[in-house]
């Protein structure tokens, strides 16, 4: 649960930032830190928790090595399956009603 992933801020709009994770872009909430476009940040459940320097973002995490990328993709697929299951069930329940 304490997994946090480094990414680079490419755009900021108020409390929201667009973050580039080695090619994949997603939004993150940046209200817990002070940061600017171009900063590398560590993101946990959709929130930036710390600014890290570029070198350590690359060196420490090698942004994503191949094994971690596969693991992360697997997690996304698992989470998506869970979410889809949830939605499918919700729609069944709604139909019943």
């Amino acid at each position, binding site marked *: *649960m*304490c*997994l946090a992933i480094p990414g680079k801020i490419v755009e900021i709009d108020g409390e929201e930032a667009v973050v580039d994770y080695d090619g994949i872009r997603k939004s993150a909430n940046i209200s*817990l830190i002070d940061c600017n476009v171009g900063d590398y940040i560590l993101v*946990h459940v*959709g929130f930036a928790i*710390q600014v890290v320097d570029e070198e350590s973002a690359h060196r420490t995490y090698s942004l994503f090595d191949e094994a971690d990328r596969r693991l992360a993709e697997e997690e996304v697929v*698992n989470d998506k399956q*869970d*979410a889809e299951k949830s939605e499918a069930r919700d729609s069944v329940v709604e139909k019943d009603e």
Partner: protein
Amino acid sequence: MNEFIRKIKDVASSLPETKIMEVCGGHTHTIMKYGIHDILPDNIKLVAGPGCPVCVTAQKDIDNVVELARQGIGITTYGDMLHVPGTEMSLDDARSLGADIKMVLSAEEALRYPKHVFFGIGFETTTPMTAFLLKRGIRVYSTHKVMPPPMKFLVESDSAIRGFIDPGHVATITGIDIWNSLRVPQVICGFKPDQMVRSIYKLLELIRDDDPSVVNDYPEVVRPEGNVKAKALMSETLRPIDSEWRGLGVISDSGLDPVDKELDAKVVYSDLLKDVKSKENPACRCGEVIKGLIEPYECPLFATVCTPEKPQGACMVSRNEGACAIYYQFSERSKGA
């Protein structure tokens, strides 16, 4: 990394049988994935502690939230919580029966369901996001827990533990000072295998020198003061409470509930929850796994009736953090079972 493996062997040669503990499920994951146990000398025993929030959540809290959902209260929560077995059923089972339970990947997604109760879980890394929701008026059932009270509890009840690998992302929020209160050797550690090997070496050095210091071995992320904004948000919206941990019992000031009673689902729905009865599966040895007293494969349910697909206990639920689920994925022993 080889340099530190050699250094670990050197330091270990001057130590007796030494038990050290990691208290972050992320660390357990790295240790098992990269086989770090295999490079440690025989006299160094590295055990997993209470570092997986899903695993340490009390049965009672799972049962309470299942009850709220079955009584028609909408629930939002993170995916892992859905599959934790309750006394009668999991949240996922309740959802199959028609309860309105939405899984969110980020706390911010919970804002889409303003009438739902957010089932908040996690240590300091994850707590600021729940504080963010409270600040926006979302009602919360909190099982949030704090470090380091369970570590203090373990040191006092199991004197064999000589030091801790501290959770790097919890420390990112808390900063460094909070860990000094334990007065045992500790190293704040990152999550890559080379970082972990280096931190284990530094911890063994502290133990050899009988030095109860806290070394920050993850300074590129952990600042001495932590994340000041996150800490301010947490103390504004959450208050310390005595909290029940699976396997450890009630530990004083080890949990957090909302300051605003109107947003505290335990208070608002106390009538719905007063008759909830909880009973843990007596065959499940999660409690001993969490305390680092047994390895997952020593539990008779492990990899037999208890698997990640059909978890019997909380430690088998989280693929990323639950000690049993991680051992199941990576351990040769589990493959032989």
